């Protein structure tokens, strides 16, 4: 369309359709003014810089019109944020989390808050005070947790993307069980301001999407420095848009074979092997790596995370927000109010972890448990650092088994915890990790393939992920009941 013929409706369609940028349109008209107003004198003031800046703002909305679901542990101003807990029933934060502001600035549309295990503590979303979420691939099975709602929403086509949180695997594990992509960024890559803290040194926010390119697009918006979060990296994130199509020629992938020896479902192992073979066919070099301290990752995690949680959850005391127990009689004082509020407001799993964590930090036990666990944590990190001298990514299954039935492990916390064996290392070490769909079991349940990368090297994970996704026979699979 010739510029002279531009109409309001024509420009709107062209900009929305991506044929023209707002800057191009703006620059055209500013140039025309410059060329003609000497003769006409129609303008008293021309806002050249301000107009171009505003046009740039309009252009910089990479998620314009994209609906996103947000896990209910992330603050959304004026909108209930419950953390899946009764203790925050009806709580409406007076502010948006940084990630929410960024999504909104990028033009995204928040369609709702998703269900999760209470305060992100759990691997099945069965610990939500509002009832479990179901797996779209089999409604009698768990979707995983704690970001079960976020994963199920994407898998069932309720939103093209969601953001979840991952402290011990809570993005990657539900992504694996629901057959979608789930990315936990490097610790510090995404601001935690506005995330209801579970374990401060482990929590990270990340995207759940159908494709790897989508995960990159959402991460690009979420990531970056934030003066409100002292643990967020001050380095700007790299441009993730140029990674695709992903090329893995010469990329070295390490597998900790010893860790896979026990307790992994045979179908999961087969799918894992098949995915490695596909990457190998595309030019990746697969080898073994040794991560001798990974066997301690689960016990270390279940000391460090509850310890930090016991402190982070102290603020839920009924004084300023959330549930406050009704007391009978003037005799009851603050201590009783605290005890009743928290007894009524917290579920069993949260109470379990608060008690574990308090114990691990208490006088006489602090050195033996918390400090000791933190020391082993650095040994686990040293293992990965050594591995990354030889490989670009470490590969493992995301979970040892596909989705189990709702209710199957609810009475066996330890069995539940042991399912985190492949995911917790990435949180303890702060390294980025991604779960990729890797096919379905005979029973048509999804299996996840996981990659762990160098610090701040989400790009490599996305690149490899994209290579796996391209032409993968399972990439078009959808849950039959929600296709």
């Amino acid at each position: 369309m010739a510029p002279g013929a531009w109409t309001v409706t024509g420009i709107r369609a062209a900009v929305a359709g991506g044929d023209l940028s707002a800057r191009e349109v703006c620059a055209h008209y500013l140039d025309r003014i410059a060329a003609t107003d000497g003769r006409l004198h129609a303008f008293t003031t021309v806002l050249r810089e301000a107009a171009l800046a505003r046009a740039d703002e309009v252009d910089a909305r990479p998620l314009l019109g994209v609906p996103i679901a947000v896990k209910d542990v992330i603050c959304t101003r004026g909108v209930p944020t419950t953390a899946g807990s009764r203790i925050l029933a009806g709580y409406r934060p007076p502010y948006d989390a940084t990630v929410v502001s960024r999504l909104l600035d990028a033009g995204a549309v928040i369609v709702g808050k998703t269900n999760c295990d209470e305060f992100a503590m759990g691997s099945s979303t069965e610990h939500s005070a509002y009832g479990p979420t179901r797996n779209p691939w089999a409604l009698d099975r768990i979707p995983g947790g704690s970001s079960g709602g976020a994963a199920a929403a994407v898998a069932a086509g309720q939103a093209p993307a969601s953001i979840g949180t991952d402290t011990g695997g809570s993005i990657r594990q539900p992504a694996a069980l629901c057959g979608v992509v789930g990315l936990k960024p490097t610790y510090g890559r995404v601001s935690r301001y506005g995330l209801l803290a579970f374990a401060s040194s482990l929590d990270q926010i990340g995207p759940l999407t159908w494709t790897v390119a989508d995960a990159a697009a959402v991460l690009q918006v979420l990531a970056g420095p934030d003066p409100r979060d002292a643990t967020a990296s001050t380095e700007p994130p790299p441009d993730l848009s140029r990674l695709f199509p992903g090329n893995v020629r010469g990329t070295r992938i390490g597998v900790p074979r010893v860790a896979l020896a026990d307790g992994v479902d045979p179908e999961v192992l087969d799918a894992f092997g098949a995915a490695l073979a596909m990457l190998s066919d595309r030019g990746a070099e697969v080898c073994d790596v040794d991560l001798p301290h990974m066997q301690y990752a689960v016990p270390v995690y279940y000391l460090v995370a509850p310890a930090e949680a016991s402190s982070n959850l102290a603020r839920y005391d009924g004084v300023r927000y959330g549930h406050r127990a009704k007391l009978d009689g003037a005799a009851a004082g603050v201590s009783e109010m605290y005890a009743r509020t928290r007894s009524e407001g917290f579920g069993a799993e949260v109470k379990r972890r608060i008690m574990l964590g308090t114990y691990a930090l208490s006088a006489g036990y602090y050195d033996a448990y918390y400090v000791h666990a933190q020391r082993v944590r650095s040994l686990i990190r040293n293992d990965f650092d050594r591995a990354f001298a030889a490989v670009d990514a470490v590969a493992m299954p995301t979970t040892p088994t596909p989705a189990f039935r709702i209710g199957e492990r609810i009475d066996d916390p330890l069995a539940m915890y042991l399912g985190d064996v492949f995911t917790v290392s990435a949180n303890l070490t702060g390294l980025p990790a991604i779960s990729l769909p890797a096919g379905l079991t005979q029973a048509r349940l999804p299996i996840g393939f996981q990659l762990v990368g160098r610090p701040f090297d989400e790009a490599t994970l996305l690149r490899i992920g994209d290579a796996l996704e391209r032409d993968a026979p399972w990439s078009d699979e959808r849950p039959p009941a929600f296709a």
Partner: protein
Amino acid sequence: MQYETVIGLEVHVQLHTRSKMFCGCPADYQAAEPNTRTCPVCLGLPGALPVINRRAVEYTVLTGLALNCRIPEFTKFDRKNYPYPDLMKGYQISQYDLPLALDGFLEIDGDTQLGLGRRRIGVERVHLEEDVGSYDDRGEGYSLVDVNRSGVPLMEVVSKPDMRSAEEARQYLTLLHSIVQYLGVSTGNMQDGNFRCDANVSIRPVGSQILGTRTEVKNMNSFRAVYQALEYEVVRQREVIEDGGAVVQETRGWIEEREVTVSQRSKEYAHDYRYFPEPDLPPLRIGPERVAELAAELPEFAPQRSARFQADLALSGYDADLLAGSRSMANYFETTLTAIAANPKAVADYISGKDTAARFLMGQVMRLTKGQAQPELALRLVQEGLELQKTRGSLEP
């Protein structure tokens, strides 16, 4: 039996920064309506995170340097966990084992009545933490919480138990107060709660090396109260022992109206604070270069300034201490001397009896202090300076 008193002081100093310790809220809360100096961070709302106030760290390092402390290269914050309605997060961000400053001292004149002369009182550590809100239990089934003070930067100076009497405690406190005020890191006003003192007191037979059981004395809201409370507590402990009893380790509050300390045993169940490093804040490295830069900012403190006034101007100790008493007073006085030295004609006029000379010089002082000095004070200082000039014949040393 002769007893020796052992006193250690913990002083909490509110720092005079523009913002709170871990958020951008204004730190000047005294005159504000309740709950108007708040944000998600100092309210302890779900999802909020702390960010370190750089100036508060610098003020604490400066204070440590002024107290002759060592500034370690690495320092960090820790969480002190306990539940109370005035503690928003259920933990206070403080410092446990790697404080900002360690192993310093202050020199006091000593309690001459005990035959003790000038010596050093050890400063164990200086660390940084956040203040808590205020909690007002109204009885009748309700209490009120004001969050304004929550998060205001608080510097804690912990002395070694080196003081031997209430008089020595008074000297230490006065000197510490003067230092923080001279540095400009705090207004140091006890009545406003900017400068709070808790004392640890015990007694032991003279010559014994073992410390007696100590009590913690709180709620002393003026220097005079500190002096009286310590005097009282020492006598109380001696009477307990001489009656055949033993001093109970407990917290006691000073009751101003009755001039006694009273056991606050309800606060006494020993808290396990479950200290652990604050995961939301990275540790800090303060390198020797930065420490040197800060050390260069240290002013001359009251004792040194007073000594200089005495030596150079032959002022009496009393007068010199008065003039050096506050940094602004000392500065104005020196400005006055500069104005006088620069205007020999005005001095000559004054000496020959012309009144207007003093007013003229006052104007000069106002100009030199850019209108900061109060006119009446400036006039008084001018008159003192002129008298000094007259009697000594010169202001040169």
